[in-house]
């Protein structure tokens, strides 16, 4: 360890400087989200732009204004709700599909897997019109179900599950059969708990996908009661009465959950993605 300490220090310094470089816009955003527009303009050309104002009675004013005068909290809660439903539904549906492709023998299984993998390269924007028409024909526009339905199946998540399930030992399933475990029960009580990492990875990716999605909810939802955070962000920031400080406060509020998720699950995200490329995973 001692032998490596100097290169290690150099590496740490380099990484620290690089992380500052990437964090610079975030720090700027955070610092200015507490300021008035006048203060933001005044600090623009100095290092004070990266320093929040002194803590006083009006420190959180931009945030209080956004929370009081807009429905942004509601939009965030809506998005959290949609994300929760999609995580549960996505893990079940994509997980079952991944399990079938990994473990159940049926004709042309490998070709089906290949077709599903090929779907990964199709950009979601190219099928959004079809999805919209499909949802509209079913009379599901402006409903939660209409928003969620086309988002449940995700080829990438199926691929992730399949790659992990392939490496699950078959004899555990055989032992479970002798323990009177049904296939469905096996999936929920054995397969998913044995694959926590990929479940966490898929959940995080699903959450981020829902949280950051703008196009699909903007097409499906017209009722303000159902809007998501990204649409709320757009409507608030494009309002002429919204100040720069309030805009930055909204952006901060929408960014924080993403940062928390990454901070909490970065290990699982890396492990999950790495494990899908390795049979031993």
């Amino acid at each position, binding site marked *: 360890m001692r032998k490596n300490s100097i290169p290690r220090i150099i590496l740490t310094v380099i990484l620290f400087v690089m992380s500052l470089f990437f964090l610079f816009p975030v720090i700027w955003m955070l610092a200015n989200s507490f300021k008035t527009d006048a203060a933001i303009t005044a600090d623009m050309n100095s290092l004070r732009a990266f320093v929040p104002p002194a803590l006083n009675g009006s420190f959180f004013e931009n945030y209080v204004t956004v929370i009081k005068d807009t429905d942004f909290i509601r939009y965030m809660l809506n998005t959290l709700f949609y994300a929760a439903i999609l995580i549960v539904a996505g893990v079940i549906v994509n997980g079952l599909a991944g399990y079938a492709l990994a473990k159940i023998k049926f004709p042309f299984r490998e070709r089906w897997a290949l077709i599903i993998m090929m779907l990964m390269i199709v950009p979601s924007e190219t099928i959004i019109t079809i999805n919209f028409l499909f949802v509209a024909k079913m009379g599901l526009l402006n409903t939660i179900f209409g928003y969620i339905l086309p988002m449940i199946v995700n080829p990438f998540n199926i691929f992730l599950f399949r790659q992990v399930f392939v490496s699950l030992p078959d004899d555990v399933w055989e032992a479970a*059969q002798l323990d009177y475990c049904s296939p469905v029960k096996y999936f929920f009580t054995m397969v998913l708990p044995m694959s926590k990492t990929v479940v966490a990875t898929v959940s995080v990716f699903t959450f981020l996908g829902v949280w950051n999605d703008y196009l699909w909810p903007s097409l499906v939802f017209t009722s303000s009661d159902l809007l998501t955070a990204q649409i709320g962000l757009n409507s608030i920031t494009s309002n002429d009465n919204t100040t720069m400080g309030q805009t930055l406060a909204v952006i901060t509020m929408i960014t924080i959950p993403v940062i928390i998720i990454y901070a909490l699950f970065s290990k699982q995200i890396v492990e999950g993605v790495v494990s899908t490329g390795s049979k031993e995973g």
Partner: protein
Amino acid sequence: MSFIEFKNIEKQYPGADKKSVTDFNLEINEGEFIAFVGPSGCGKSTTLRMIAGFEDITGGELYIDGKKVNDVLPRDRGIAMVFQNYALYPHMTVEKNISYGLKNMKVPADEIKRKTDWAINILGLEEYRNRKPKNLSGGQRQRVALGRAIVKNQKVFLMDEPLSNLDAKLRVSMRNEISKLHRELGSTTIYVTHDQVEAMTMADRIVIMRNGVIQQVGKPMELYEHPANKFVAGFIGSPQMNFYDIILKGNIITFADGNTMKLPDSVIFKLPAQQGEMILGIRGEDIKLDQQNLDVFSENKHSAVIENAEVMGNENNLYFTFGGSQTIARVSKYEISGIGDKIDFVFNPAKLHFFDKNTEVRYV
């Protein structure tokens, strides 16, 4: 009536040009400990998996406790199984692993507790009951797998090379534990192994398989003393039996290297009309180096030079070339010979085995 009955059981995998198991006929009595033994690919595990219901039976009929089970689901066959890789549920504790099946069987909670405690106690797992499998050693994991099997009180235990992942020392102690457990529970057990020592030491009867075909079924000493063919003779026993290509003319054996040996009438008597080329087999311990045997069988005394010696502690294995074949003599620890030493030896004529040159079936 037999408890498990195989009637012309066959297995052929889709796309395979030959059968993995061919015309397998066997009757197993209730409470018996049967070992399926043979080299890799002989069909022993496939047969076990057909009993479990994890492989389809492509021909023949299988009966357990009088009921045909060809199309019965694994869980409804009344079997418990111990797997080679333990197949424990990695996210469950020892206690939950053992009790999982009982819970699915809707056994009352107090009964589950009683049975789980009994299994944990009998297998010495008390201090590990709240540990997960990853925090257990190989031997402890194997005990949990055994616990999971015994707790359900099934009619038949299937064990698929359960000790193959353990080190040599642990294998011996687990062998003893499994035998003890079998005696205590009295359950019908089918044990698959490629290790003939495990089969010999544990089983009431051994089924030896090769290329999907039963070679011989019998008690351990029957197989050892009276192997049905050269394959069985070579498979059972360590070191393996020595084999020689010979020509028998009258009562004289001529080995490939020109050495000869006169057979006593008692042996010739057992070989009616069998003359000409054949294979002679003799076990290492039946090659005698001690003076008493050299005196008794003096007219058949031969000499050789030791090429290698394995000192085992309780005995020695001496390697030398004789009769055109590598020969291993198993001698007592007191009969020490070094590499390069010349030794005199005789074959105990009462322990000779003769096999047909073509079919390799044993004459006597």
